């Protein structure tokens, strides 16, 4: 490997790593990609159309496969064997989802692809809370356009002109599949409350798209997609990058340190091979970290030198700070009015066809919490799972034909309302190196600190209020006990798997770790191109923005490289 003359090493192969590799290899740069997990090929490994009866325990989640047997995640979940993390004493719970596979979390993600809006980039200017980004929506908009056209996003719609909920320009999005019965049903309740319901933006190819297969409108996206109809780094970004001849991928390479030259520039990285335990160092003209916000921070913090005794780029102590997640909360309801619906195929396009964007921007003062949430709503006649018995838990006496009949009636009559809200960064949420715990290879582990603010817990309480009101309007009843205390009902830190913001971007080297292009202030040939650079955590799911920002950063990096400035 020493004979290879790499222009850039990319650590990580998910949304950020995949996108930067795609752009830089196409720009003619020689790229070495290091992925901590194993090689993974969705074309042959995806359990398309398998039914639950074929899997152990009918495919329910277990500690080995927390999101169910068929979930795409390899060697991971809330715990990764041999790679512990800790949560500080006195902290609220924090959980950290990691896979160990090529393509990272893009293999199983929810495919919801919403743009951040103009207010999301300037939250402090709006209400004095949190921090502004050094860029505006207009800076990123062209990259959203390009990203949507490249990865394939559905959700085309007539312009809605809703505040802070950007419409994509014509030609960026494909049309969604039509709303399903339960979507037609709930829409009317929201409209009666003056709350909009609009097409969801989903990274699924729903129409004709050159070079891509169209969705089969069946079998869940979380398993991955053997025909590449949804966005995964492994099907959409890495194959064309490989085709340039400029990409080399090394898997099972767990990077733990950025190596520096004497004059303080990045000369490469060191990694341990997870299978053999051997340590290696590789060199290149520049380095991109895109290992995911937690792992990227861990690499920086473990890269200690005389110039950076507290970790690379961490002279001001900001690495690991401003850790954010999304506020999550669920209330489900059962609806007698949906009972007895004739059988209909609700498999759909893999995720919601419609959703509720945040509607309360102008009412935040009276609402008592400063930032909003959108609502992701699931339901319909989904493939039966082991949870099916829950439909008849109140009809315990039923057996035989009466039981069969009741199940037929109630199948598909529940709807789940999932709030996904903005979190404001706070001083109690961060990660650092654990002083004691190390991984199997002796590398210090991360220790997380977490505490939701009142902005989030009040928002969570409002979600419960909204969802129960909608359920009532639709003549339904919540399934199970409803927790109205936002502090108790809110998700755990990290649970939404949107952890971002540990190496944020800013205006200068005193307020941030990187500039608006992901270039670290401290080491000019070291870049960060994952969610770590995000300054705020809008309610919109981060993956689309991670890709768009990585593309924008990689484009800038390629320009700098051509100028010989690396």
């Amino acid at each position: 490997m020493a004979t290879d003359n790499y222009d850039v090493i990319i650590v990580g192969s998910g949304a950020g790593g995949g996108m930067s590799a795609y752009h830089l290899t196409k720009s003619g740069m020689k790229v070495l990609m290091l992925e901590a997990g194993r090689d993974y090929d969705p074309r042959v490994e995806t359990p398309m159309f398998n039914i639950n009866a074929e899997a152990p325990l009918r495919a329910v989640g277990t500690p080995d496969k927390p999101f169910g047997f068929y979930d795409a995640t390899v060697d991971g979940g809330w715990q990764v064997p041999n790679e512990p993390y800790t949560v500080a004493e006195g902290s609220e719970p924090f959980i950290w989802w990691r896979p160990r596979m090529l393509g990272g979390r893009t293999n199983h993600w929810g495919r919801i692809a919403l743009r951040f809006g103009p207010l999301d980039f300037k939250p402090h200017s709006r209400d004095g809370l949190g921090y502004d980004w050094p860029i505006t929506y207009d800076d990123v908009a062209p990259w959203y356009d390009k990203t949507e056209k490249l990865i394939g996003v559905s959700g085309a719609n007539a312009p809605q002109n809703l505040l802070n909920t950007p419409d994509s320009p014509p030609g960026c999005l494909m049309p969604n599949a039509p709303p399903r019965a339960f979507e037609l049903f709930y829409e009317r309740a929201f409209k009666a409350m003056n709350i909009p319901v609009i097409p969801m933006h989903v990274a699924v190819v729903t129409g004709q798209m050159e070079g891509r297969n169209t969705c089969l409108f069946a079998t869940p996206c979380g398993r991955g997609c053997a025909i590449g109809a949804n966005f995964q780094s492994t099907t959409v970004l890495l194959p064309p990058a490989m085709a340039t001849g400029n990409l080399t991928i090394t898997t099972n390479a767990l990077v733990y340190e950025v190596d520096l030259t004497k004059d303080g520039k990045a000369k490469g990285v060191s990694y341990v091979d997870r299978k053999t335990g051997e340590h290696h160092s590789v060199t290149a003209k520049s380095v991109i970290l895109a290992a995911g916000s937690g792992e990227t921070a861990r690499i920086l913090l473990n890269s200690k030198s005389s110039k950076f005794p507290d970790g690379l780029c961490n002279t001001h102590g900001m690495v690991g700070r401003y850790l954010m997640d999304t506020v999550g909360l669920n209330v489900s309801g059962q609806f007698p009015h949906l009972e007895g619906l004739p059988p209909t195929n609700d498999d759909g396009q893999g995720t919601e066809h419609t959703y509720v964007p945040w509607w309360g921007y102008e009412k935040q003062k009276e609402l008592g919490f400063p930032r909003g949430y959108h609502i992701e709503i699931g339901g319909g006649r989904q493939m039966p799972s082991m949870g099916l018995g829950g439909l008849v838990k109140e009809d315990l006496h039923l057996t035989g034909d009466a039981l069969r009949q009741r199940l037929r009636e109630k199948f598909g009559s529940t709807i789940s309302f999932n709030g996904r809200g903005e979190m404001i960064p706070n001083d109690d949420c961060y990660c650092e190196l654990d002083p004691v715990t190390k991984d199997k290879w002796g590398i210090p582990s991360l220790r997380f600190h977490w505490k939701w603010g009142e902005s989030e817990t009040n928002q969570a309480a409002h979600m419960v209020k909204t969802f129960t009101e909608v359920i009532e309007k639709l003549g339904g009843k919540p399934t199970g006990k409803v927790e109205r205390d936002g502090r108790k009902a809110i998700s755990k830190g990290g649970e939404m798997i949107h952890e971002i913001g540990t190496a944020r971007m800013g205006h200068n080297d005193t307020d941030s770790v990187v500039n608006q292009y992901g270039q670290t202030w401290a080491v000019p040939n070291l870049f960060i191109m994952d969610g770590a650079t995000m300054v705020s955590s809008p309610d919109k799911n981060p993956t689309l923005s991670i890709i768009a920002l990585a593309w924008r950063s990689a484009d800038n990096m390629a320009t700098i490289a051509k100028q010989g400035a690396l």
Partner: protein
Amino acid sequence: MSTETPEPYVSKIDRRTALAWIGVVGAATAAGAGVVVYGPKMGGDRITRGYGTDPKLTKPEKAPWSRIMIAEQLQTAAILADFILPASGTAPSASSLGIPDFVDEWVSAPYPDQVKDRPVVMNGLNALGAKLRKANAADRAAALAALPASTDPTVMAFWKKFRGLTIGAYYTTEAGFKDIGYIGNVPRTVDPGPSAEVKAHVQDALTKLGL
């Protein structure tokens, strides 16, 4: 559910034991199409490992852990599963879909949720088995009918758990899909959305709700 002469549950583990217990040798017809046959239980050390964090997904392998239920418990499970979901019209009985085998797989599993369920199900099956073993048809039927009406929290916990496992296991099969009216999991070139009939049903509901 035949309470007259229970069909012997043909255990994939030990068919002979099941038949002997029931005492109706020669009537082994329960193992129809769709029964999951795992092969005989082998001697040696009990395997308690899970399937690991990287199992093969496209053609899942049999779960690796040893099964713990003995023939008598499987037989009780078959009778109870068929009390919950006996054959009806073209819909097969729970036992013919191998539900007792699935319950065995479940209670034998090394994962926390299943380990928690293990004593609930096993104790429940043992207690029920003792009642069924020497009972005549009428007493057998009464013993089963008493379960959902029980005021004993231990019995009710067993009933809820076993019934949930039976329903889940039954309706996650192709036969279950057919019975409940799940018509998805088929590739389509387009998703046309709900039919006019379905839309009309939804509209009726909304009208009734004043929406």
